[in-house]
């Protein structure tokens, strides 16, 4: 029996995967299969009931489920085949995919191109090795969000939050509005990783203190969480003895970072980026394995869903070109993160194959005002952009054209410089 083939198989039906499917379809590729592990499409947006989605894409501020629904409606207008409650088990470098669902069992198919839109997972308490006991009542913020917003169950009444990422901040507001007492948010860095608007409307509005340069150093409770201890940290992020403060809480939510889900990428032998923990890609979102593309939070963690969709569309367009034989995969210029930049994507640009214009996406390493972001090729400065304000919590985009890169023969570096 021959293996069923599909031109494009997209793994993950969240915002990146749906956008990739829609875009690939609208660019002439009709034989597309979208695989989603949950019972419906939409991914993590379905539990993000707060507003703030879609400002770039739809010019309106939507709640997460509404943003997802608008995309699903666009997908419904296509003939993309969708399988929900379907988990992908294996992915090989030659694009064999094994998935399972209750209706078909285990099925292996072959794809002309694969788009990994697998999303990310939350770093857990275990991953950051927070000391203390291991009672119930310690959750990642996203898990608590799911219990509250989708299942309709409150996870606790007296809450502390570790990490000032957006999910943590949003949960502080959400739990407060649902009647819980949020005693504080601790952030190990000297600045918050959340959007300024969330500090304002999630913490300041409710007088919830934000403890910068603090982390949780002890967790007590044999059964359910009974208390936590926070401590101030020094410049090396090590707790300072004698600065401990205890909080009697029944719930500790962890909002300590997101990590791209790369289990399948790893299995397929795709090279991973040491900083983003996602795949290394070129400007077409193609990974180190030809014909396998990656996008969205499964590639690197975004702060706005609109950009996730945009990146999904880029991957969808590229995959469509790839299956039509219009995409070359030459060894190309490497772009590295210089001073002040924590990472830059893509890692490679092929100046011959690139579109007329493309965008570098980067995250800076610190908060600053009035700086320049500078792209150089060796000693030669190619382009610079002035920035009024930069923050590690906000992804920066750096547009670059083929003309600007013409004549570049050696690797590129992007850095932050004082004005």
């Amino acid at each position, binding site marked *: 029996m021959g293996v069923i083939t599909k031109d494009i198989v997209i793994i993950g039906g969240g915002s990146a995967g749906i956008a990739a499917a829609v875009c690939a379809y609208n660019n002439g590729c009709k034989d597309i299969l979208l695989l989603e592990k949950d*019972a*419906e499409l939409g991914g993590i947006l*379905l539990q993000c*009931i*707060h*507003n*703030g989605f879609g*400002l770039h894409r739809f010019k309106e*501020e*939507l*709640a*997460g*489920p*509404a943003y*997802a*629904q608008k995309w699903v409606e666009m997908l419904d207008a296509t003939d993309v085949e969708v399988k929900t409650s379907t988990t992908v088990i294996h992915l090989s470098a030659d694009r064999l995919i094994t998935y399972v669902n209750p209706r078909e069992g285990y099925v292996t198919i072959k794809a002309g191109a694969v788009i990994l839109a697998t999303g990310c997972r939350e770093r857990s308490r275990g991953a950051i090795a927070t000391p203390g006991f291991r009672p119930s009542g310690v959750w990642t913020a996203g898990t608590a969000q799911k219990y*509250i*917003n*989708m*299942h*309709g169950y409150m996870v606790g009444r007296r809450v502390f939050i570790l990490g000032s990422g957006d999910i943590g901040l949003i949960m502080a507001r959400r739990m407060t*509005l*649902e009647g819980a007492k949020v005693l504080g948010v601790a952030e190990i860095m000297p600045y918050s990783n959340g*959007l*300024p*608007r*969330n*500090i*304002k*409307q999630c913490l300041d*509005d409710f007088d919830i203190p934000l403890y910068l340069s603090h982390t949780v150093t002890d967790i007590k409770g044999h059964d359910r969480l009974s208390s936590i201890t926070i401590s101030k940290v020094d410049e090396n992020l090590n707790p300072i003895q004698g600065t401990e403060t205890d909080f009697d809480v029944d719930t500790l939510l962890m909002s300590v970072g997101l990590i791209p889900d790369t289990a399948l990428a790893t299995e397929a032998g795709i090279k991973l980026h040491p900083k983003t923990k996602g795949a290394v890609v070129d400007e077409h979102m193609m990974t180190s394995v030809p014909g396998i593309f990656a996008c969205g939070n499964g590639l690197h963690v975004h*702060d*706005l869903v609109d950009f996730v969709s945009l990146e999904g569309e880029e991957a969808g367009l590229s995959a469509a070109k790839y299956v039509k034989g219009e995409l070359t995969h030459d060894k190309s210029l490497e772009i590295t993160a210089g001073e002040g930049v924590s990472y830059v994507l893509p890692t490679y640009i092929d100046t011959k194959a690139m579109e007329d214009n493309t965008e570098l996406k980067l995250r800076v390493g610190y908060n600053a005002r009035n700086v320049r972001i500078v792209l150089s090729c060796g000693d030669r400065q190619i382009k610079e952009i002035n920035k009024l*304000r930069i923050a590690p919590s906000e992804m920066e985009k750096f547009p670059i054209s083929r003309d600007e890169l013409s004549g570049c023969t050696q690797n590129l570096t992007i850095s932050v410089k004082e004005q």
Partner: protein
Amino acid sequence: MAKDVTKTYTCIVCPRGCDVTATLDESGGIVSIDGNFCPRGETYVRNELTHPMRQLTSTVAIQGGIYARLPVILSAEIPKEKMTDVMNALKDVSVNSPVNRGDVIISNVCNLGVDVLASRSM
């Protein structure tokens, strides 16, 4: 001579989060508003100074849906201090599936002139 006071606000209208500075005269009157990228930032700060407004999203119980809760959003912002009232108004609401995105779940909630709308179809 009377001294002007400045107050800085992080605009929450969109994820951009502009730092908007309002300069006030001695009696609290607005002299100028700067730092906003768009006009909505000025409106936001004017509201913050007089009557802060907030969007509110939450959930209501739904019967027969894929999940136990239906996410809801307001048709417009409400005074910040009314958020608790609206949350209380949502507590005992239960709707039946199917619901369409944008359906009015509660009209004129708490007499605020604002509707509670379904954020999604379910």
